[in-house]
């Protein structure tokens, strides 16, 4: 250790005075022990810190009565200044031994011998070492205790926090709205919460006494136990299923079950955690809603929805499986409803439903109400060919007993359409349509019977049905068009006019003649707008010809009127409107009315025709000779043309003509002319016919001999040919 030649000290002290010497001692001491201290004080600060301790040592050395005790305090002071390293003590003792007497020996009031000084210095060192050691020991013990206490405090805080955590978990477990259970991997139930106990009927022991894998239920989904095995083997982390359990009273608890695998810190499977949500109520509600959605409220029978589900299943392709369907419609139910009221009608339906139900009790049989008074009975199995006949028979028999309603006996009858066949061939809609058509056939045949579906009858009905439903849109889509067949003047062979013939260009069936759809249009009422369209279109066309054919004499357009049009109140107004808007004079229009439409016609019906005739519109009696040709009646009718049906002219196709036919036609023509009626013949196919008819005196003819019905421009070219 080096001794500094210029020790630092307080500038106010005389370097060689007692204070200066004390400071020099403190400097030496500070330098000696600073390296072994842990203080964060700077060296000058540390030296300042040591100065009072140095003064104490100096004072102790010079005490009038020597007492080493203050040196004990100096030792403790070192420890307080964080000189806790044992090196600090040995360095201090070295400094005291070497420099205390040297720098502080002559400072005091008492003059000491060298020997005394050395002795006192030695005792000071003993006391200082004792004081240091005691203080260090106390400090060490105090710090050890402090840190131990802090560790304990920290641990207890951690435990409290952990406890709070556990308390929270416990609360979650205890108060959760879902059932929670923990089991080991052998299925032993270790813990369950109150919710779970309540869900299972309230007896904790009931739940705990069964292992997890004993909670089987017949309605368990097939994979639930496979999942369970995978989970306890550690191959699956969790699974969720819908699972039923038995409560302790034997009732069924339905749950949404989620099971999770709990692993230990090393990742080994340890426990299984089950969360169960009680879905029993929801399930019942769903079942009720499902029941309501699939059953008829009045009769309690399955409704259309459920029936179609079953039918779909029955029709799904399955080897050897067949189905039989009875489609029942009550005969005359509307009359019962109308005469006895809806309440009585409803009671009748309930009674019928009960009887039907008793007819279809075998497995694979069901009865449903489709709506109104329509019921169905379905049977499935390998032998429905026979069974469905028996079923239909049973139903008719069940209905045969009169129903007592309000003290009166009602006879209930029904018509049944029966469809039977193998599975996997037809759709439910096809089967039901076939049954419906067949039922109508039974009804048409007089009712109170069943009819068997027959593919050909079906096809006919299906086409008619299809055309009927397609008619309204066909008009909107412009699927109709008109062909014109020339009317030829027999006298000179010139084209005298044309008959408008409506056609339907059907997207699937191609071009259809009026015989295919006019009766349907009559039936649905569509004939009115369709007829109006034909009239407008034809008149427009005639006007067009008139403009193009100014020098060709009068040109007429013949348009057919159906019976419904004839009865329509706006017939006259509309016809006038069409003529006025087109500018065609009424004399160029001829309306053709069938003879049958006018049979028994009274004045009311004839009135519009009269009005039209008075305006100048020609009225032709179409198909004359096919109905009950009331010759006397002809006088009353506002008719100016007779159109002879083709049946009269067929006998004249070849030469020589059938003489009887010839006589009849001669008679009719003569009669017509005497009534001022012109005569047109239809169906002229040969030149011989034409010549015969001309000789007889017929005025006009139409037929393939002249031209088939065709597009309007063909008529135009015929006209041009005439003109040449």
């Amino acid at each position, binding site marked *: 250790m080096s001794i500094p030649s210029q020790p630092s000290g307080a500038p106010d002290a005389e370097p060689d005075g007692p204070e200066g010497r004390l400071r020099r001692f403190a400097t030496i001491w500070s330098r000696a022990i600073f*390296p072994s*201290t*842990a*203080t*964060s*004080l*700077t*060296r*000058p600060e540390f030296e300042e810190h040591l100065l009072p301790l140095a003064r104490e040592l100096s004072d102790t050395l010079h005490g009038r009565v020597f007492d080493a005790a203050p040196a004990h305090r100096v030792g403790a002071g070192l420890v307080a200044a*964080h000189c*806790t*390293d044992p090196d600090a003590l040995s360095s201090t003792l070295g400094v005291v031994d070497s420099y205390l007497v040297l720098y502080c020996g002559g400072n005091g009031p008492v003059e000491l011998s060298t020997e005394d000084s050395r002795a006192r210095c030695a005792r000071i060192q003993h006391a200082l070492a004792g004081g240091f050691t005691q203080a260090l020991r106390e*400090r*060490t*013990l105090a*710090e*050890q205790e*402090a*840190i131990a*206490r*802090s*560790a304990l*405090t*920290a*641990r207890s*805080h*951690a435990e409290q*926090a*952990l406890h709070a*955590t556990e308390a929270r978990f416990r609360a979650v477990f205890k108060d959760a709205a879902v059932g929670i259970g923990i089991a080991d991997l052998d299925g032993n139930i270790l813990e369950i919460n109150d919710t779970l106990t309540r869900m299972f009927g309230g007896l904790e022991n009931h739940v705990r006494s069964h292992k997890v894998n004993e909670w089987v239920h017949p309605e368990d989904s097939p994979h639930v136990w496979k999942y369970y095995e995978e989970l306890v083997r550690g191959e699956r982390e969790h699974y969720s299923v819908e699972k039923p359990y038995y409560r302790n009273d034997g009732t069924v608890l339905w749950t949404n079950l989620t099971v999770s695998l*709990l*692993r230990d810190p090393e990742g080994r499977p340890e426990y299984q955690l089950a969360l169960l949500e009680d879905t029993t109520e929801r399930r019942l509600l769903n079942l009720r809603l499902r029941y309501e959605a699939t059953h008829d409220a009045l009769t309690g029978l399955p409704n259309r929805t459920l029936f179609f589900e079953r039918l779909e299943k029955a029709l799904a392709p399955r080897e050897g499986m067949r189905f039989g369907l009875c489609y029942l419609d009550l005969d005359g139910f509307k009359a019962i409803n109308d005469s006895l009221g809806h309440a009585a009608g409803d009671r009748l339906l309930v009674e019928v439903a009960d009887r039907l139900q008793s007819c279809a009790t075998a497995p694979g049989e069901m009865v449903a109400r489709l709506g109104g008074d329509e019921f169905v009975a379905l049977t499935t199995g390998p032998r429905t060919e026979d069974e469905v006949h028996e079923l239909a028979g049973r139903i008719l028999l069940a209905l045969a007993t009169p129903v007592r309603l309000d003290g009166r006996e009602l006879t209930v009858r029904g018509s049944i359409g029966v469809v039977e066949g193998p599975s996997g061939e037809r759709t439910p809609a096809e089967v039901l349509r076939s049954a419906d058509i067949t039922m109508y056939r039974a009804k048409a045949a007089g009712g109170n019977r069943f009819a068997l579906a027959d593919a050909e009858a079906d096809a006919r009905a299906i086409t008619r049905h299809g055309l009927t439903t397609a008619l309204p849109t066909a008009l909107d889509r412009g699927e109709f068009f008109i062909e014109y067949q020339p009317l030829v003047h027999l006298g000179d062979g010139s084209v005298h006019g044309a008959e408008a013939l409506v056609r339907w260009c059907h997207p699937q069936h191609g071009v259809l003649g009026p015989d295919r759809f006019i009766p349907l249009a009559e039936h649905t009422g569509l004939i009115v707008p369709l007829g109006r369209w034909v009239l407008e279109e034809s008149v427009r066309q005639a006007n067009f010809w008139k403009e193009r054919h100014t020098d060709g004499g009068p040109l007429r357009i013949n348009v057919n009127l159906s019976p419904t049009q004839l009865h329509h109140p706006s017939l006259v107004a509309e016809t006038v409107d069409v003529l006025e808007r087109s500018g065609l004079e009424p004399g160029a229009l001829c309306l053709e009315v069938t003879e049958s439409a006018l049979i028994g016609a009274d004045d009311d019906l004839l009135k519009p025709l009269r009005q039209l005739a008075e305006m100048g519109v020609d009225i032709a009696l179409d198909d004359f000779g096919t109905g009950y040709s009331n010759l006397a009646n002809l006088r009353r009718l506002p008719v100016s043309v007779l159109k002879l049906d083709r049946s009269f002219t067929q006998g004249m196709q070849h030469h020589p003509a059938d003489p009887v036919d010839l006589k009849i036609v001669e008679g009719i023509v003569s009669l017509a002319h005497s009534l001022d009626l012109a005569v047109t013949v239809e169906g002229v196919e040969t030149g011989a016919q034409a010549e015969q008819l001309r000789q007889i005196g017929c005025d006009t003819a139409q037929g393939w001999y002249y031209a088939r019905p065709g597009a309007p421009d063909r008529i135009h070219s015929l006209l041009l040919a005439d003109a040449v």
Partner: protein
Amino acid sequence: MERPAWAPQGIDISVPSVSRMYDFYLGGSHNFEVDREAARKAMEFMPGLPKVMQANRAFMRRAVHHATTLGVNQFLDIGSGIPTFGNVHEVAQAADPEARVAYVDHDPVAVAHSQAVLEGNERAVIAAADLRKPKDILDNPEVNALLDLDRPVALLLVAVLHFIEDADGPYAAVAELRDALAPGSLLVLTHASYEGIPLPQEEAGGTVDVYRTIRNPLIMRTRKEISRFFEGYEMIDPGLVAMPEWRPESAEALAQEDPFTYSGFAGVGRKA
């Protein structure tokens, strides 16, 4: 199953703690045999470790003092460890009796001990929080009750950042703290580094291994890497330097410093 964030860590005093090892290096007895054993092992590779700790303490003392001369009298000391002597509040409150000090540590024992030491001091608190979650520190009710973050704060990160691995985002954490402080705030920082250690790196590396063994890895960073912690702050003279070189009391004192005190870097930055 992973422990939820709000569940406290358990206390295991059979595992060495860097706070208590630090106390041992500084001659304290706030430590257990496991701490001393680990510290002695570390000292086998770097016998001058106590001098490094002492230099840290001395730097911190000078820096705190300097902060008070700049008028900053709020201190946020993160990673404060076991209070020994010459603590921030002692130094700061000696200079300015109104000075307020919030200590933060994540070692529950250090926190408990600090609570005992600080009992009765109304201007010093200890909060249990982790530097890796700066939001927890900034939102801590005790910290907020004591410090006014709208006024300048001296943020002390003394001998703590070298315990934060890169994966835990030390730069982002410090940035979040820096950004939260008011203009005029200071960042007081020391960090271990191979640069300046008077030993070959492979030898000093033994110490790093010891800390890795006790699951408190010591992350040595270069001066350049350490300077990034001050991003956006102006360095106060003399910048980022060896600890003894930061505003030494005197040239003579600097000359007498132990070579080990040159291990690592110290610096103070100021938010404009």
